[in-house]
């Protein structure tokens, strides 16, 4: 009985502490971080948006996308992103990885089909298709592809845009980031920035 009374007394004190914590940690802290971030890093804090000519913006209505978000690309004149399991593809409102296991028949079938499709599209053999081209990313919003997958697409994009392959290869180089400090993560190519560069070069 004493314990129940003590529990109620502590719960009442706990409620007072929780209300204070909610005001400080639930409102004060995120609002203060938001305020400082909006002043110090407005571009990043609002989604790292770029316009169709590649310049930075914070206004979604004039943006062609975020450099951090992959987007659906159905234009055969441009670089394709990785397969995406987010909604119908790159749906920011239902981010998802396929969550299929390594022995799952549905995944094995999908990889086979993607391999054949990418090989046919790029005019290469299935063995030359890199892993990231045939696997769905974790977020379904992966903004990057591997340098190998970008390199595979150079010939097709160059031809479709009437550009020399060397020029497109140069654009790929410019959009490639190596491992951070040489050791962190992996080398990668930002698809949106690359496609913007291709479109500008083609004009």
């Amino acid at each position, binding site marked *: 009985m004493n314990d129940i009374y003590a529990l109620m007394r502590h*719960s009442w004190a706990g409620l007072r502490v929780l209300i204070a914590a909610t005001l400080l940690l*639930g409102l004060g802290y995120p609002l203060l971080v938001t305020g400082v*971030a909006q002043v110090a890093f407005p571009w990043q804090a609002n989604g790292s948006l770029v316009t169709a000519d590649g310049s930075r913006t914070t206004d979604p209505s004039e943006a062609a996308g975020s450099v951090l978000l992959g987007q659906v690309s159905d*234009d055969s004149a441009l670089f394709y992103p990785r397969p995406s399991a987010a909604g119908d593809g790159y749906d920011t409102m239902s981010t998802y990885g396929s*969550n*299929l296991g390594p*022995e799952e028949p549905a995944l094995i079938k999908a990889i086979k089909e993607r391999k054949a499709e990418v090989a046919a599209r790029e005019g290469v053999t299935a063995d030359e298709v890199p892993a990231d081209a045939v696997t769905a990313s974790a977020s379904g919003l992966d903004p990057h592809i591997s340098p190998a997958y970008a390199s595979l697409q150079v010939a097709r994009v160059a031809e479709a845009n009437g550009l020399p392959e060397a020029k497109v290869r140069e654009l790929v180089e410019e959009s490639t980031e190596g491992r951070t400090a040489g*050791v962190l993560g992996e080398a*990668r190519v930002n698809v949106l920035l690359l496609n913007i560069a291709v479109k500008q070069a083609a004009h």
Partner: protein
Amino acid sequence: MNTVVAAVLQVAVLIAALALAVPFLGRYLAHIYTTEKHLRVEKVVYRVLRVDPDADQRWRSYALAVLGFSLVGILFLYLLARVQQWLPLSLGFDPFPSDGAWNTAVSFVTNTNWQWYSGEAAAGNLLQMAGLTVQNFVSAAVGMSVAAAFARGLARGRGNGRVGNFWADLVRTTLRVLLPISFVGALVLVGFGAIQNLRADLAMTTLDGGQQILTSGAIASQEVIKELGTNGGGPYNVNSAHPFENPTPFTNLLEIFLLLVIPFAMAWAFGLIVKDRRQGGAVLATMATLWLGAVGLLTWAEIAGPGTAPQLAGGAMEGKEARFGEAASALFASSTTGTSTGAVNAMHDSLTAPGGGIAMFNMMLGEVAPGGVGSGLYGMLMLAIVTVFLCGLMVGRTPEYLGKKIGQREIVLVALYILATPILVLVGAAVAVSFPAGPAGMLNSGAHGFSEALYAVTSAANNNGSAFGGLTAGTPFWNTLLGVLMLFGRFLPIVFVLGLAGRFATTQHLPAGAGTLPTHRPLFVVLLTGVALVVVGLTYVPALALGPIVESLS
């Protein structure tokens, strides 16, 4: 550079950063858990809230304060989730269903942060901030407070049964440790691209004329405490794989650093609190050994990429981000399951079969490699007591740890602690596969489907929160079951830990004798590591054999 060399160097950079930070943070933690001085701002807080920070509590009072605070936390969060449609900044989302609100309330208060819902499509900004972010702070602080109380129980030789004051521990942990680190960390994350705004979700026209919604929210501020407090519940469904939560390989390493730094620093602080730094060193070395072993094995599994799909694709990149690749994903996966974090930067359901098995095994260790903030330390100390007990049996001496005799009452409490979580996991798994509603949620077929269920109950009972995400867990059956597992998986061990702290606090220190097993030497680290592995191995191998082991061999 070769992939393997880069992977090794990436781990080396992380270890170097931890080696610099842990002694410093550990000393700071030891100070705040032993000093009698309050900061001026804290005095104001105590006065306004009318709590007494100087009452040195017995274990029972301390435990009731923990339970009372957590109880109101659950009720408040439940209420918030049920009425979010009426709250400002709710982005027009519906209220949570009752089973979902129960699950989420328990999940965040127990530091599990299992998420049955998809953040971007279910939880508005106010619920994320005022509900979930708050619990990310205070549930972490609760765990650290309990660990501090246990360390003080061991350290004190006055025999008056007092273990400290919960409210002072809670307030100090939050104000002096979690909040300042989070504030700085959040701004660093924003600088590298994590978003932090309170706009509405707005549409963008993409490069080829399609529509994409630009999601909004106070993401960075939640992301940082989600890692630092080993919580793991992020604002987005795909968690730290989302580029708005974890935009670059650098932020990835920073987030891994944040989720490891306090658990390791608590071990360091422990050594200082018991006034024998070598004891903390032994605990830390055991944690580090287990963690590094898991990192090595999981990295090997993902880079080697065994299994039909990875072999066919030419790499285990299903469910991984291009900027992280296999190595940085494996490092995150082993660190998030070794701590009780449960944040993910890759889909664990799509890990290779041995990789997924190691992630599961890591949680089954009971979150001690290096474990949750707080729970990692007290979990490892429980195993240390089992170790001295076993060694005492072998040589026929009454076992003791840090001068405290391990008698019958003490070992009963330790045994209850060790057994509580495995019973929850194994009974939970049996329940989950015994009703049609359990397997109904599985996405994958065969052994991998069972792994999804086993992973879910393991994650819940150990308060991890990561998932084999293919499991559709947002059903009344799964929400209820996992909620129960999370609740008991958190508070049963805490009560046993505090009970034991109370026992220790009532006894005097015995002087070390010739028959005392030294608990600070490398030999003890080896024994402790062995005990951790054997206890888990004996408990879980049959269950693992039905899931990841059979899948690895197929």
